[in-house]
């Protein structure tokens, strides 16, 4: 913690025996463990695809390859931004790190949004957790992955707020940090509400009939409220997204960002597997 001066060698940590930073080692060990975690979960899904119950939902009836491909692409891009965030932080560029983290959060949220949309859509089509075993394994597997994404987003948000921590320990910034956090939370919830409203309206009136869609959307106050909340919270985030003081965040924190990145990338590769095993293979 005292190693502020001088350049930091990001490939060798002199305080540890192996030269690998403790946090990095911790993350890799954790990811090894997570391999078993998802291994068991994916096995369950595949076993039940191998031995399906007689009247399960036909996956092809509900799946939408366009949507899934899109969200897969989005997750890949978020991974890119994450990698860039790590790179930026290693060079001590706080501003760039913040931007990249924000971008990652944004893409992650799009992914989650797609998943929320997908789930509600499937439920509309009659496939639920309880409806059949395919629903059970599908939602549990992709949902667990979704929870991992959500935890990742939470972590990113914390890290983003962390970049504002003043170097002067006596400055009170808890209130500020909490406001930032609340703004994130409100924005996220607002977006999800908007998405759900659109899905709802679309399912009832068809997505192509723009007028009917618009009419249905503004029929209830939800959309207006959530849009306003979204705009406001983004505004707050923008305002708070600047710091005039010296921050306690820099190159030395690259390892924190990197650990978070490892987690995020791992969630991405789990999705790579899920995309192939759960979605693509169904089309054969």
């Amino acid at each position, binding site marked *: 913690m005292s190693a502020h001066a001088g350049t930091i060698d990001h*490939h060798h940590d002199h305080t540890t025996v*192996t*030269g*690998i930073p403790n946090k*990095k*080692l911790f993350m*890799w*060990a954790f*990811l*090894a*463990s*997570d*391999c*078993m975690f*998802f*291994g*068991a979960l*994916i*096995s369950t899904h*595949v*076993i039940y695809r*191998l*031995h*399906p*119950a*007689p009247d399960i939902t036909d996956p092809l009836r509900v799946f939408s*390859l366009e949507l899934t*491909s899109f969200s*897969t*692409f989005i997750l*890949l*891009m978020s*991974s*890119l931004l*994450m*990698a*860039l965030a*790590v*790179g930026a932080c*290693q*060079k001590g560029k706080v501003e760039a790190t913040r931007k990249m983290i924000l971008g990652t959060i944004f893409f992650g949220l799009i992914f989650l949004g797609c998943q929320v949309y997908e789930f509600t859509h499937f439920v509309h089509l009659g496939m639920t957790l309880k409806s059949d075993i395919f629903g059970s394994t599908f939602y549990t597997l992709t949902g667990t992955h979704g929870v991992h994404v959500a935890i990742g987003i939470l972590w990113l948000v914390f890290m983003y707020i962390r970049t504002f921590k003043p170097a002067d320990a006596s400055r009170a910034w808890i209130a500020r940090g909490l406001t930032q956090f609340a703004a994130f939370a409100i924005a996220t919830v607002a977006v999800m509400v908007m998405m759900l409203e659109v899905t709802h309206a679309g399912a009832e009136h068809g997505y192509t009939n723009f007028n009917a869609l618009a009419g249905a959307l503004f029929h209830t106050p939800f959309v207006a409220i959530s849009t306003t909340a979204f705009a406001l919270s983004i505004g707050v985030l923008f305002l708070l997204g600047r710091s005039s003081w010296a921050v306690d965040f820099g190159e030395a924190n690259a390892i924190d960002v*990197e650990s978070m*990145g*490892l987690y995020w*990338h*791992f969630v*991405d*590769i789990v999705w*790579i*597997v899920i*995309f*192939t095993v759960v979605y*693509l*293979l169904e*089309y*054969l």
Partner: protein
Amino acid sequence: MSAHAATAPHAAHDAHHDDGKFHLFVQIAMILAVITGVEIVLIYIPLAKWLIVTSLVVLSLVKFLMVIFWFMHLKFDKAFCTILFFIGMVLAGGTVAALMLLFSARDSVPLSAQTIYAERAAAAAE
């Protein structure tokens, strides 16, 4: 595909010196996107099923490895990280494979799936 892979390490070498790994990472992301596209197209190509399945598995594996080795820096880090992660990965892979084998055995066919198996057998017989 192989052409891309060949250029990647080369780019890594160059990029390392000037502007970090920015270009390298962008290129990798592009390759990943392209592979995903290939995968999606692949399922519509009328080839033998085993061939498609194999290609899908191989392509996903390539994506998997690209992410862990470049985005997750395994390539640039101490080999021990790779070993550590591979312990988990290999063990998980082995366990998944063992479970698949166990549940593919004839003795494992659940009673609830037997009608489906009968239907499939009938369809195959035609």
